[in-house]
């Protein structure tokens, strides 16, 4: 690796488009992920707005029922596999994780680039299905529908399979990086909690994703050749698919949300100028969540004909998830308690995260309750619940992190005023979109339907207005980010947030080799003592 000449940084040196597409620099790969993820966020978002537009009033307005089915399938598949899962680990994590360890790169830079290209290949195939028959199965690919539909589900399954391996290789890379590339003096108890969160996420990625990959391959094979594993006519069992699928897809929820918790762990102490409350409990809670994640998948199958005993067991274990999650929420609040709080945009997003995530988490406990779930299963209550977790949790955590590390990544600062405006608009829009869905779902409105009875009209109207607000908020964010990148003033000096984690020892933006010195860790990541207001 070349050292960048004085005055140059990782973006300006080495020069040229060709140096980007073969780059092994984790920072550049992180930026390429970031650009791709944001692009697909736009695509998935447009599908979301189209769905909401159609649901503004009962009956069919702008599309056929078949188109509607395809649109929500694309919304779900793109958002889950191409946006929410890679959003924090692959985009932000690639950039900051090695720097938080004082390392020059991830353990396996070539595999890192390879996994980015796998992501691209999967993304291209996923999008290409729109021109080769479409897909209308929903992102869960439940059989027998997915193996008998006239649309091209097999091609979409191929795409998800490939993207899965991109995710596995990212996880593998980060695991080895955290184990082997920590700075001198950086014991496990001196790691920033973001690193802990990404590490736990990586374990889930490595252990759960291959099961999904093989299962999706089986569905594709079944659709194409009719092998019969999931087909009762040939002796197979469709419920087996649900078990395999949720064995991955429940832990996948934590692939999405643990990294967001990691981001919040960084921001809250920094903007409270206080050490994090209960570092060890926080790290332990991350692992507690990751562990329990593997043994709760049956809560998606309470109505699939599982025995009552199994249902009770899964219900009980699912509620245990609330314990480590509660530890984290209380620790964040305790960290802020009597801190000297600074409400710049990253902190504002962190507050938004806290508020909606608590609602998302608590409604999860309601759904884990057997009796309640029989009523709420497959209603909009579930839709609202997982959007509170995925959008409210992951997306807001991502936005917090993006604002937090934006100056590090680009050496420019976004406009603080517009940052806050966008955050508030998205927050209001988000709650307006999804809170009414809790009520509609509780009153029995089923998910995935193209039409609904007039009684549900008011909730759907509110929801659609809210979705437009969310879109508006993100358009504002797009504008001030682009403005900052092109016309923004360069940051003077380093570390605008006065954070103590090692990534801020680098220049903004960092040099090609990250640091000009060898990073040695002598203090904890959140030793903000003596700085209290």
């Amino acid at each position: 690796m070349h050292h960048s000449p004085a005055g140059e940084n990782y973006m300006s040196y080495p020069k040229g488009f060709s140096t980007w597409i073969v780059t092994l620099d984790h920072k550049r790969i992180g930026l390429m992920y970031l650009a791709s993820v944001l692009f697909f966020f736009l695509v998935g978002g447009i599908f979301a707005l189209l769905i909401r537009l159609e649901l503004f009033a009962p009956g069919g307005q702008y599309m056929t029922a078949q188109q509607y089915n395809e649109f929500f399938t694309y919304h779900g598949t793109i958002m889950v596999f191409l946006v929410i899962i890679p959003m924090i680990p692959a985009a932000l994590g690639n950039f900051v994780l090695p720097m938080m360890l004082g390392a020059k790169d991830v353990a396996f830079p070539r595999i890192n680039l390879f996994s980015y290209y796998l992501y691209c290949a999967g993304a291209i195939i996923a999008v290409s299905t729109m021109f080769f028959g479409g897909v209308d199965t929903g992102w869960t690919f439940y059989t027998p529908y997915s193996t008998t539909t006239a649309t091209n589900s097999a091609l979409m399954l191929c795409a998800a399979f490939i993207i899965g391996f991109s995710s596995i290789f990212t996880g593998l890379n980060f695991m080895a990086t955290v184990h082997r590339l920590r700075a001198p003096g950086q014991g496990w108890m001196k790691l920033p909690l973001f690193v802990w969160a990404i590490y736990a996420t990586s374990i889930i990625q490595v252990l759960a994703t291959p099961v999904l990959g093989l299962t999706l391959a089986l569905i594709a094979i079944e659709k194409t050749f009719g092998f019969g594993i999931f087909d009762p006519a040939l002796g197979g069992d469709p419920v087996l698919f649900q078990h395999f699928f949720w064995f991955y897809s429940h832990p996948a929820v934590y692939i999405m949300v643990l990294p967001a918790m990691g981001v919040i762990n960084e921001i809250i102490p920094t903007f409270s100028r206080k050490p994090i409350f209960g570092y060890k409990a926080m790290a332990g809670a991350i692992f507690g969540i990751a562990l329990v994640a593997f043994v709760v998948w049956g809560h998606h199958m309470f109505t699939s004909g599982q025995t009552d005993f199994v249902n009770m067991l899964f219900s009980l274990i699912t509620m245990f998830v609330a314990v480590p999650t509660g530890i984290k929420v209380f620790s964040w609040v305790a960290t802020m308690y009597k801190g000297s709080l600074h409400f710049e945009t990253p902190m504002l997003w962190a507050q938004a995260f806290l508020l909606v995530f608590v609602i998302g988490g608590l409604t999860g406990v309601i759904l884990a309750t057997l009796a309640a779930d029989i009523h709420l299963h497959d209603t909009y209550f579930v839709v609202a619940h997982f959007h509170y977790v995925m959008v409210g949790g992951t997306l807001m955590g991502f936005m917090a992190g993006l604002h937090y590390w934006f100056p590090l990544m680009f050496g420019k600062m976004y406009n603080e005023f517009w940052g806050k405006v966008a955050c508030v608009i998205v927050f209001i829009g988000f709650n307006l979109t999804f809170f009414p869905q809790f009520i509609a779902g509780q009153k029995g409105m089923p998910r995935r339907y193209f039409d609904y009875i007039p009684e549900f009209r008011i909730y759907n109207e509110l929801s659609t207005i809210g979705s437009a607000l969310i879109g508006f908020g993100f358009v504002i964010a797009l504008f001030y980010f682009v403005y900052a990148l092109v016309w923004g003033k360069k940051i003077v000096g380093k570390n605008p947030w006065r954070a103590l984690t090692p990534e801020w020892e680098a220049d903004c933006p960092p040099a090609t080799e990250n640091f000009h010195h060898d990073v040695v860790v002598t203090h904890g990541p959140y030793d903000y003592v003596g700085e209290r207001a």
Partner: protein
Amino acid sequence: MADKVTAFKEHHHAHHFRNDEHQFETAKQGMWVFLLQEVLFFSPLFVGYLIFKFMYFQDFHDASKHLDWVMGAVNTVILIVSSFTVARAISSAQKGNRDGVVENLIFTFICGLGFLIVKYLEYSHKFHDGLLPGHFFSNPELLETAPHANLFFTFYFLMTGLHGIHVVGGLVVFAWLLKRALNNEFGPKYYTPLECAGLYWHFVDLVWIYLFPLLYLVG
């Protein structure tokens, strides 16, 4: 052994590692994590097979009688021998014996090829008898007596097929390693790719060690 002194190519560790040792250990750890992933990748097939085996016990029993355990046993021996030769290739590299590396890699490659040839013979036999997955199944005898034998052969082809793909992958890797070994790249100071390929090959061997009794023997 190494009578003539081989001039090994110098190998430089990547810039983000402290030294060769650091890089070697990291690569090995990465390989272990990859193999962990592989275990989980195979797991749905094993779990599915066991579930259906207990669901249709008699049918699976009758169906497995149609597998040729002699061929399976031959392949087991072939793979165990090849695991041994891979280990010898690595220890040859550690001793700086280039010819030892080359010979053992060639032998391993031939073993892998032999495995695939036996597999091919088995598969074509099954095709001939109509012992095929799902609705392709057309063996008249079993259709009469064991209605779910088709599911056994679905798993037989999926499991041995996925394993076979791993064998093919191994052959590609060994060909690449052979080229590098002939180029004097592996010596006592640097043999990381050999070590990792060895781990991978032992894993492929191990999967077969489970597949063989599960499919061929425990009727």
